């Protein structure tokens, strides 16, 4: 049996807990033994991206301690996953724990398609859906086809591409509150692309992008909903 340790991220833990539950359900159904280490908090990215490397290092150290010995760490966010697998090394250069950790950290969809080799999880979800490529999943983890394949194999679901698909939603962590007008403008441009597809739901592998899109959709009075990939794949 494949053993999985969930890293749900602080955003999912506190704001979108159902995403974590959905992820555990999907992994459980795929035959994994799922654990959740309660000592987990954050990956440190907010501090790292804001230039506070010492503070980010403190949190990264805590992550390393928490997940010591975990066989596979599956992360509910492309961005947090990339923080761990790509940027921990910049914070802790030469640290063998980081080196050992890198090949064991997986973004959720990546773990399904690359490790478990699953593209059909047996889910059912009725409706027209569009997929938002979150930037760090796309550009740092090279995740592009995996989530789309998983979605295409969901019964009742029709996937439609937005144009352009690869443009940022404007979240960017503290960027969203340091430059609110620019960030909000980017979200509205993204929403126009989503609306042109006619989809009822926009899906992503990152809850923070979805928080930005959901917030902007709701502000504009749109009926379009947002869902994390795990929630769609857990639907029966």
């Amino acid at each position, binding site marked *: 049996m494949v053993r999985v340790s969930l890293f*749900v991220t*602080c955003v*999912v*833990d*506190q*704001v*979108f*807990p159902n995403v*974590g*539950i959905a992820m*555990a359900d999907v992994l459980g159904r795929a035959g994994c033994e799922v654990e*959740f280490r*309660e*000592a*987990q*908090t*954050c990956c*440190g990215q*907010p*501090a*790292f*991206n*804001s*230039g*506070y490397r010492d*503070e*980010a290092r*403190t*949190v990264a150290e*805590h992550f390393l301690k928490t997940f010591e010995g975990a066989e596979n760490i599956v992360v509910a966010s492309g961005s947090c996953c990339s923080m761990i697998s790509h940027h921990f090394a910049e914070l802790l250069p030469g640290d063998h724990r980081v080196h050992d950790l890198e090949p064991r950290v997986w973004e959720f969809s990546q773990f399904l398609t690359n490790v478990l080799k699953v593209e059909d999880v047996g889910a059912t979800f009725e409706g027209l859906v569009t997929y938002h490529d979150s*930037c760090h999943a796309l*550009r*740092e983890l090279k995740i592009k086809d995996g989530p789309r394949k998983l979605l295409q194999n969901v019964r009742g679901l029709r996937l439609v591409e937005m144009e352009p698909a*690869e*443009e*940022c939603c*404007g979240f*960017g*962590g*503290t*960027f*969203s*509150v*340091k*430059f*609110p*007008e*620019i*960030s*909000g*403008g*980017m*979200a509205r*441009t993204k929403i126009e692309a989503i609306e042109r597809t006619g989809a009822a739901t926009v899906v992503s592998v990152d809850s923070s992008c979805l928080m*930005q899109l*959901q*917030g*902007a959709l*709701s*502000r504009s009075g749109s009926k379009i909903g947002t869902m994390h990939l795990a929630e769609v794949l857990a639907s029966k």
Partner: protein
Amino acid sequence: MKTPDVTATLGDGKLQLAIYSATARLADRRREVVSLEAMPDYQQLRQHAHDIKKHTLDHLDYYLEQLERNIEARGGKVIWAKDGAEACAFIQKLARERGVKVIVKSKSMTTEEIHLNEHLEAGGIEAVETDLGEYILQLSGEKPFHIIAPALHKTIGDVSNIFERHLHSQPETSPEALTKIARIALREKFLEAGMGITGANFLVADSGAIVLVENEGNARLSSTAPKIHVAVSGIEKIIPRAQDLAVFLKLLARSATGQPLSVYTSFLAAVPGEFYLVLLDNGRTRLLADESKRQSLYCIRCGACLNNCPVYRKIGGYNYPWVYSGPIGKILTPQFMGIEHDPWLPFASSLCGACGEVCPVKIEIPRILLELRSNKVSSSPDNVELWSFKVWAWVMKHPKIYAKLASAALAAAPTDKDSFFAVGPLKNWLSQRDLPVPPAKSFRELWKKRSK
């Protein structure tokens, strides 16, 4: 941290459309010509270009001296300018000595960087921009809005108005007719000019040649019609060998405009009249000394990072503090001017990574932005933010406290944008979008119940 007021740009619908459609056109064309089908070796070429630039800048002294020897062997002269003032002073003195009253100029960001036109005008010399976009902006008294498409923000109507006002022409509605008006006015200047000034896209060390890449033919005219040609170039534009152009010319026009090659590519080695190459430092050797950010100097000024940047596409060129705008400007400006000049600049990015992905010489712009943020925080931290992150990091090390505090904070946060308690970052968030409704239970609480 003070950030610039971008509301005027964001609120100007006509300007937004002009920026968005022009950058989309350039970005779409680029994407098409570098696609796997169109150019299977594109990624190898990028790496090759990066490696050549790295090698050259790691051995810059060697190649610059080789270039100087080869240019002087062909009868040209190399002038080493420590900064903009030295470069401008040399050109001004030369023009005065040769009795030059009118100078024709082709598009050059380097001369924008050192405010050459203003210096020449102050010395009573007329310097005329001959690139169509630059000419339009010179008439209207504006600065380039974009590295390669300086008048990208101008509509046909805007250009017609500018020509009517300054050239007393009739209103026109087609780009062809407007170009003709500029062409007639500029021909006079080409004939009149005693000196031509150009930039340089590449300096070829082994052949003592300079390479000019353009679409209008005005750079070729500027460099050959007048008796004196002065090229102004940053020292980083050098490449070792003529054969390296096979790599860079394949990448430059494709990345810039989606053309396989620009309409005119001039290789200037033989010198018919007087030729001077002004090699400009102006802070470049300081960047060179910083090994982890040195690659900022690899830039070949294609503008692809601007066209693909969602922030540039919102705020355009004029909200950036210096001549270089967009992602490349965000990393060059703090390094040239010092981080305290515009401390907000490296933070004005969602770190989406689109710039790094399209850069033809693989400059890791997002990584450098992160490093500059860290430099800013180390040199002059904002105390409130610093202590917030210190407390935050401590909380994140203590899971039980984190769990209690996070849930309490979420439950207490106002979701109404007009709430009295919506302050600071929360207010900024709510100014643009709603907050999600906080869940009744966190994941860790749900998980505990589930495992029972």
